[in-house]
């Protein structure tokens, strides 16, 4: 059985104010897969998720989700397809005027006619999965960063979507919750046959659970492969990323003039 393609990205280009961010991205994501997108800070990973969700429109190329070109959809059709997507925002984006419980229940109340007793059970189950059932009565302001992120995770899986995008789900988590959340994502993807896209910097943890990895650098896909291929890769770029080396093709610094000159040391030397 060949798994069905859920997301197809073809020759995708995108610029912010005529500054190109993504240049000719091609990806395919199948049902039942967990896909990791890695790349330096500011390389356009969040932007890529926004493009998949139809929040921004590409300058050329397209994103297809279950056969439909996202940016060509009418508003109603776009909302229809978004009901089947979940997105974990990089900074959580919990509704600050609603409690943890109401945050997770939000989509169920907006989109379904489920009776309140069933919503209660479902919400508690989702919160239980992220280890926060006991915190259901708290307000977002009373949560720690890692807890807020886990609530946001529970909220994004509330309606069992077919595609979930996680923007850095592991940041701010202790090693224990990190392992639990990682295997939760894997398990959900397998049992529900959904597709998970994880933007992450946590190379070691994500290599344990993902099926495929894309590396983005300078707006293009610099490398891609299965975790085994990535681990053994001799490509300098991938090697540097996986082993966290400072020296290599990926610069740590944002382009700038020489450090010595910035500190006014250069002149004194001459």
């Amino acid at each position, binding site marked *: 059985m060949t798994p069905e393609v859920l997301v197809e990205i073809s020759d995708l280009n995108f610029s912010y104010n005529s500054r190109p961010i993504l240049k000719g991205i091609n990806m395919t994501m199948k049902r039942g897969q967990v896909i990791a997108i890695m790349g330096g800070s500011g390389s356009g990973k969040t932007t890529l998720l926004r493009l998949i969700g139809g*929040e921004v429109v590409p300058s050329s190329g397209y994103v297809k989700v279950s056969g439909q070109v996202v940016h060509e959809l009418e508003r109603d059709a776009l909302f*229809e397809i*978004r009901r089947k997507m979940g997105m974990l925002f990089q900074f959580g984006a919990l*509704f*600050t005027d609603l409690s943890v419980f109401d945050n997770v229940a*939000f989509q169920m109340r907006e989109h379904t006619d489920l009776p309140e007793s069933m919503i209660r059970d479902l919400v508690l189950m989702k919160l239980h999965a992220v280890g926060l059932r006991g915190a259901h009565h708290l307000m977002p302001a009373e949560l720690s960063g890692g807890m807020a992120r886990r609530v946001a995770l529970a909220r994004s899986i509330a309606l069992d979507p077919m595609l979930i995008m996680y923007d850095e789900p592991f940041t701010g988590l202790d090693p224990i919750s990190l392992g639990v959340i990682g295997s939760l994502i894997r398990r959900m993807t397998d049992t529900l046959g959904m597709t998970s896209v994880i933007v992450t910097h946590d190379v070691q943890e994500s290599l344990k659970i993902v099926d495929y990895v894309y590396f983005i650098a300078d707006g293009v896909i610099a490398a891609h492969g299965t975790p085994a291929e990535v681990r053994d890769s001799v490509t300098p770029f991938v090697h540097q990323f996986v082993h966290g080396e400072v020296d290599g093709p990926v610069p740590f610094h944002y382009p700038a003039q020489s450090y010595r000159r910035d500190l006014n040391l250069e002149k004194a030397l001459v």
Partner: protein
Amino acid sequence: MFKHLAASIRGIGHRTIEGIWQLGHATRFFLLVLLKSGTSFRRFGLVIRELYYVGVLSLIIIVVSGLFVGMVLGLQGYETLQKYGSESAVGTLVALSLVRELGPVVAALLFASRAGSAITAEIGLMKATEQLAAMGMMAVDPVARVVAPRFWAGVISMPFLAAIFSVMGVFGGYLVTVTFIGVDAGSFWSQMQSNVDFRIDILNGFIKSCFFGVAVTAIAVFEGYDSPPTAEGVSGATTRTVVTSSLAILGLDFILTAFMFRGL
């Protein structure tokens, strides 16, 4: 020299065009909110929740200010009227000034700084923390779910707040003139009753407050929704809400008064 002149003229032109753009933008947004108000009425609970934050929480400032404004009116009115021996008309004076002008206008100004700024700040912060984007990604329209209920809550609260302001003001005037100064209570009330007309005074005051409610809340939700998603962006938008809606209230008041009482 010439360059400076050209630059400043260009600056003026630029700002004018910018302003007109912004006005068009705001009008479009206003129409969008009206268009997407269906949800607010189908699920009136959303509006009721906001009525609490927008209306009920504004009550204190409205009640206290109304009382004081009425007391001052009573004092000033009495001082002037007694020179002509017609201090029994003080009830009429207090009631007419409140119902026609001060009630709607001052209540709206207070409402703009109390509730309008809060609406702007809340929507702006929801935008800055990506809550609105998250809502959109959950296939829930933030204009229908967040903006429209707040808009209608403001529109509904404003006439009530203005009425409460006027009632408290009349009570304040009564306190000062009848209870403390000793004007005859019977003539205070009977003069007021015979001189305040329901259609000309009360209804027109009510219509004014409706206009103010729409103006203030429309400005507040627009500024919040349009604010740059940063801390300075939100604080700037909050200030603009108070300034713009105060000017809008006073400008509208002049236009409405001209139509209502001069029969233009």
